[in-house]
């Protein structure tokens, strides 16, 4: 059992009763209990992915709450936080209620909706923040878009702060990005593709850190992709600013070299960067500059990716590959198992302020059982997600979730 909250990394029995963790001890005798033998595996708090696009309502051809949560369960996640760029946008309580309703009847894992910062994600007027807070959003984000107007972001930070909601920023200055489709670097120069420079992200992160400091509010940075960003965040934290940050597995696994053959499954925003950035993100996860790993799961229709690179939509799926790619960091010696699990359970739970990510008597029985040695190959056709857009097709992976338990019920078991 690995539980970051208590710091326990030891062999334990865990008894679940009535959807709650009941007892944790070295040896439990429970006659009528169903036993799951997790010998040689890791029993961890249920993992949370706080950056997922479930696409419902409006884009059900890409993904639904049902298929997206099934994908989450297959990836070992017991909770997801879903972004607001649906259609209609989740910028009011009625859409929040809709999402929660579908999640309740068809969701396989816990779904925590994230509400928009601005109406329609247009970056102009604030969304119905108080009503969405009441309806149960856990954070605000215009993800997909950056809040370009700093006064709008300032107002959002101050207003959302009244409800304890963090603002999650997709840091990407649209003027500097222009029509960039990949990292601005040697590869983009050679391929003749418009570049999206690091400074598009870093200038916004620097700006937002100052705004968070000035307002005293909590800002969380989505999908950090550059070394410069990691450093700004590290310094902001040292200064006592309420900053948290997440990184996506593709940003610590791939570089812009993956775009060489114009593979549209290597196109996402922010883009894949260079080796120095990959190393900085790993370092940031290790030393705490970056708090969580979040997949930015962004499914698209097949036809939307089977076009020229410039015309392909941004985004890749990630729920079913996040954990094995993150386990690589343990194998590389970048993270300890405890730290890895912390970035995928306790920390994301803290960012969105939900009572999850711990294994202790009385806690909700969301549990993930991980086999760190399971060998398997990524086959997009077998994804539970509707999306097939992954750059990891055919990759041989080591490690994955083998059992996913939500509120005491087994919702997913790996069949091999």
């Amino acid at each position, binding site marked *: 059992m690995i539980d970051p909250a208590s710091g326990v990394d030891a062999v334990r029995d865990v008894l679940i009763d009535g959807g709650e963790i009941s007892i944790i001890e070295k040896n439990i005798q429970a006659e009528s209990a169903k036993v799951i033998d997790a010998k040689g595996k890791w029993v961890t708090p249920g993992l949370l992915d706080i950056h997922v696009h479930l696409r419902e309502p409006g884009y059900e051809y890409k993904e639904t709450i049902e298929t997206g949560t099934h994908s989450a369960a297959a990836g070992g996640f017991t909770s997801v936080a879903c972004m607001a760029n649906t259609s209609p946008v989740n910028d009011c309580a009625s859409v929040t209620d809709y999402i929660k309703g579908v999640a309740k009847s068809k969701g396989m894992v816990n779904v925590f909706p994230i509400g928009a910062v601005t109406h329609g994600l247009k970056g102009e007027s604030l969304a119905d923040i108080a009503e969405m807070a009441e309806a149960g959003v856990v954070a605000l984000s215009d993800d997909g878009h950056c809040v370009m107007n700093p006064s709008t972001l300032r107002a959002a930070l101050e207003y959302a702060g009244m409800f304890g909601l963090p603002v999650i920023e997709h840091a990407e200055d649209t003027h500097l990005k222009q029509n960039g489709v990949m990292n601005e670097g040697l590869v983009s120069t050679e391929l003749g593709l418009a570049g999206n420079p690091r400074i598009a992200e870093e200038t916004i992160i620097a700006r937002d850190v100052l705004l968070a400091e000035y307002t005293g509010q909590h800002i969380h940075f989505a999908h950090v992709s550059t070394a410069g960003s990691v450093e700004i965040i590290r310094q902001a934290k040292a200064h006592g600013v309420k900053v948290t940050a997440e990184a996506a597995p593709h940003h610590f696994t791939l570089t812009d070299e993956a775009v060489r053959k114009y593979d549209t499954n290597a196109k996402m925003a922010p883009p894949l960067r260079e080796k120095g950035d990959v190393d900085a993100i790993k370092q940031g996860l290790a030393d705490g500059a970056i708090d969580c790993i979040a997949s930015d799961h962004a499914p698209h229709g097949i036809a939307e990716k089977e076009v020229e*690179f410039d015309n392909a939509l941004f985004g890749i799926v990630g729920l079913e590959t996040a954990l094995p790619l993150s386990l690589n960091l343990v194998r590389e010696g970048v993270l300890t198992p405890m730290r890895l699990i912390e970035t995928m359970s306790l920390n994301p739970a803290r960012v969105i302020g939900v009572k999850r990510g711990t294994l202790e008597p009385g806690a909700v029985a969301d549990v993930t059982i991980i086999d760190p040695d399971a060998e398997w190959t990524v086959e997009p056709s077998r994804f539970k997600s509707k999306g097939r857009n992954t750059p990891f097709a055919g990759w041989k992976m080591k490690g994955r979730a083998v059992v996913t338990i939500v509120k005491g019920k087994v919702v997913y078991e790996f069949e091999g």
Partner: protein
Amino acid sequence: MTDKSLSRRRLVSMSDVSVEDVQKIMTATSAMKEVSERDIKKIPVLRGKTVINLFMEPSTRTRTSFEIAGKRLSADVVNISASGSSVSKGESLKDMVNNLTAMKPDLIVLRSPFSGAPYIVSKWIACPVVNAGDGRHEHPSQSLLDLFTILEAKKSFDKLNISIIGDILNSRVARSNMLIMRKLGINITVCGPATLLPKYIENMADRVTTSLKEAVTGADVVMMLRIQSERLNEKKFPNLREYSKLYCLTSDTLKHAAKGVIVMHPGPINRGVEISPEVADGPWSVILDQVTNGVAVRMAILYLLLGGGLQETN
């Protein structure tokens, strides 16, 4: 690898082209140029072959050049113009290509406004694909006709100083030329305003400068690129007057070049903007030779990909 074919079955990037391939193409081009001088400008080598010119970006010159090239080889040439993104027109690119495949073409010549388009088209069609210009990425047939024109004038590539001047950032001609010329032992200088020089360009060229005079000094070949008015909207430089003041090639500037310098341009030229009229019409200019050689080079490419006996995949 047979004597008569290229080492790859497609011509998408100059990275597909080896130094040996360049020799083969130069030799074949000479032969084809002779055909174009005859009274009956036709040889039967590609008789019965279907060549489709799929032009998804407007182009009269390159398309005409490829069309004439195909017809002089007796191929059946079909021109298809599909402007802009096929997706926005309702038919997906994949469906368009699948439909073409069903008509069993022997070769596709593709021009697209999008970098990398030939690679994606190659995934869906088995016949050879010739890149007639993809976005900002490459323009291999232009590069090869540039090489042939240079060879005609200079007899050898060895240790030549070539300067490419203009909007390097957006130039597929510059990219193709940089890729192949370094393999041939040519010294390449690129020059343009700082805002039109891509990041890390120093990895693709031997020298980078923002000074026209510096670029032209000692150059054996000066290649001017057309500045597009679209760039004005992108706020990369104030106006054409300033651009011209800094980067227009005049006979005065050419005084600093090496003896016997030739002036090239992929066309169409903007008289008075990047090239002054006296240079465009002057004794240094080989611009019209480039056009003549263009047909011959394209005949050579089509012949080597299709007519040269056994084709081999690499």
